[in-house]
């Protein structure tokens, strides 16, 4: 029980607090937990994951994901629904121009005929081509590996969409209504999966990982050898999409 209490993200009431109060709360809980010497590794991991608004993002963490395609059910789009709901993405009934941060894709091996279903989204590359080509630097990579678009300096040239090997980005083709405060969007700018960066900053997981009823998405810190993600990646064989391009994406697929 104490282990769980030491993780601030699992304290719903802590989310209601202001920054200062929350910081105080963290310190108290973390200190108390450390004092009790209860599973120090877990405590440290959780505390380092959560940050307050005035703390800079650290490159000690690199967020990533392993998608187990053997668990991903064809026809299930729980992850997509969670993403759309959480980020305020609504369809205008125009699939060619509607924004899609996350999508389900079903593929069949040309030789063996094996059918696989999987979610596709921004792969959060270590060397993202979208960031390379962006003329204004609006496309950028956070120190923790999350690739984002600065909506204030995106001019809507769509060159990043030409460059992305994963077709992960959408241009906002229509006026946006009912935006979520944590996921600002703007007509005429480009956007894509943010790894639910607002959740990460609070020590929580992206909504797709939480919303997957098949538990096919394992999210975690690629830099921490003790994270469940790193351990699983060490055990099972996984692959990067378009590994030939050596972009080192943060999203890996198992069983593809």
């Amino acid at each position, binding site marked *: 029980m104490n282990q769980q209490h030491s993780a601030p993200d699992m304290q719903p009431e802590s989310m209601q607090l202001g920054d200062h109060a929350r910081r105080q709360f963290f310190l108290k809980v973390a200190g108390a937990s450390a004092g009790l010497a209860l599973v120090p590794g877990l405590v440290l991991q959780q505390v380092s994951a959560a940050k307050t608004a005035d703390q800079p993002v650290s490159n000690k963490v690199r967020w990533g994901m392993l998608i187990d395609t053997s668990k991903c059910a064809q026809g299930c789009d729980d992850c997509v629904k969670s993403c759309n709901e959480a980020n305020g993405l609504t369809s205008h009934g125009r699939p060619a121009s509607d924004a899609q941060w996350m*999508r389900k894709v079903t593929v069949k091996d*040309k030789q063996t005929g094996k059918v696989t279903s999987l979610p*596709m989204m921004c792969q959060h590359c270590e060397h993202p081509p979208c960031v390379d080509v962006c003329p204004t630097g609006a496309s950028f990579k956070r120190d923790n590996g999350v690739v984002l678009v600065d909506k204030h300096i995106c001019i809507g040239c769509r060159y990043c969409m030409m460059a*992305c090997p994963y077709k992960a980005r959408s241009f906002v083709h229509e006026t946006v209504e009912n935006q979520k405060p944590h996921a600002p969007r703007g007509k005429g700018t480009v956007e894509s999966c943010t790894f639910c960066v607002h959740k990460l900053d609070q020590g929580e997981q992206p909504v797709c990982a939480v919303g997957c009823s098949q538990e096919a998405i394992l999210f975690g810190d690629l830099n921490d050898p003790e994270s469940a993600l790193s351990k699983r990646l060490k055990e099972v064989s996984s692959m990067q999409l378009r590994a030939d391009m050596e972009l080192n994406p943060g999203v890996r697929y198992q069983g593809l």
Partner: protein
Amino acid sequence: MKITYSELPGKNPRFFMILGVLASIIAIGLGAAFYMEHSGHYVTGMSNQIVWGLPHIFAISLIVAASGILNVASIGTVFGKKPYKPLGRLSGLMAMTMLIGGLAILVLDLGRPDRLVVAMTTYNFKSIFSWNIYLYNGFLLIVGIYLWFMMERRMTQYYPYAGFVAFIWRLILTTGTGSIFGFLVAREAYDTAVLAPLFVLLSFSLGLAVFLLYLIVAFQSTGRPLGDGLLQRMKKLLGVFVAGVFYFVAVYHLTNLYLTNQHAFEAFILLHGGIYTVLFWLGYVLLGTVAPLVIFYHPSFGKTRNAVIIGSALTVLGSISLLYVIIIGGQAFPLEIFPGKEVIESSFFDGVVSSYTPTLWELLLGLAGVSIALIATVLGTRILPFMPDTLDDAVVNPQLD
């Protein structure tokens, strides 16, 4: 005989009619751009699959033509060919106006054209797009200085240096334009260095063809003598350029045909790509390359002025067809995200050829860009003496080296 230059006469009703027509097209195009911005780009044919469309074909055609048009001045200044020297002023002016027309389209098609100041002040220097912003602005500045030195008596001694800098700059500029596509590592159509020289050669042919057409129309409509000897000489050069573009296009496709992983893309463009296959074979190869070469080098018809006009117009048509195939066809072909696999289901058009139908709004914006280039040229030649009074063969001596 010494070459003299003069402005267009100003009180001519036809002059005002041309201005009126061009200004109307620009006004309509600006309205279309406002409509697209106000509604959002969903009212265009562009989508999350085909992100660059008809406006970009217009814009890139104008930008490529702009750098090519400057060749006419460079041939006189840098390579010292005397018959080209009287054309230097008009060449420099048109190089600037075509570039401005092309950039206007690009800016007005941005999702946020109001952030032009951001594009001009916030740079990511790893982006070839960023370099191009410098190259375009630098081009306008350098060609402006080149023209000033060319036209200002006191500065004439320096103008060969300015001409040399402008020539080098324009080669870098078109290399940059081609590299916008050449540097796109993920797509089958791009990710190749050959696109840079292909664009350079395309600028040579497209630029010279546009220049010849404008020259003939402007001189005939203002009653200035224009010698066929000069046109014939330029036509022969245009033929070489058209063949040069074909060489690079052939290298591009033959290389792809050798590479197994590019076979599907080549089959798409060359065999079953619908509009792209038609535009490639009929638009670019047949009408845009074979036909102008046959016309230019035909022993009797080739010697006529009509041959120059028709051949140049076909070269423009072929160049635009080629750009359409490269830019839109390259996006229409699906990204290979899952090698060895076939996509059987996707909500985001994975694995399928994307369709694109340009809308009227995009066409109007493109035509407005062309009109901006033309109106700036017409006004330029009205205000300053860019046009020689005569290009009669007796004056120009087209047989000179």
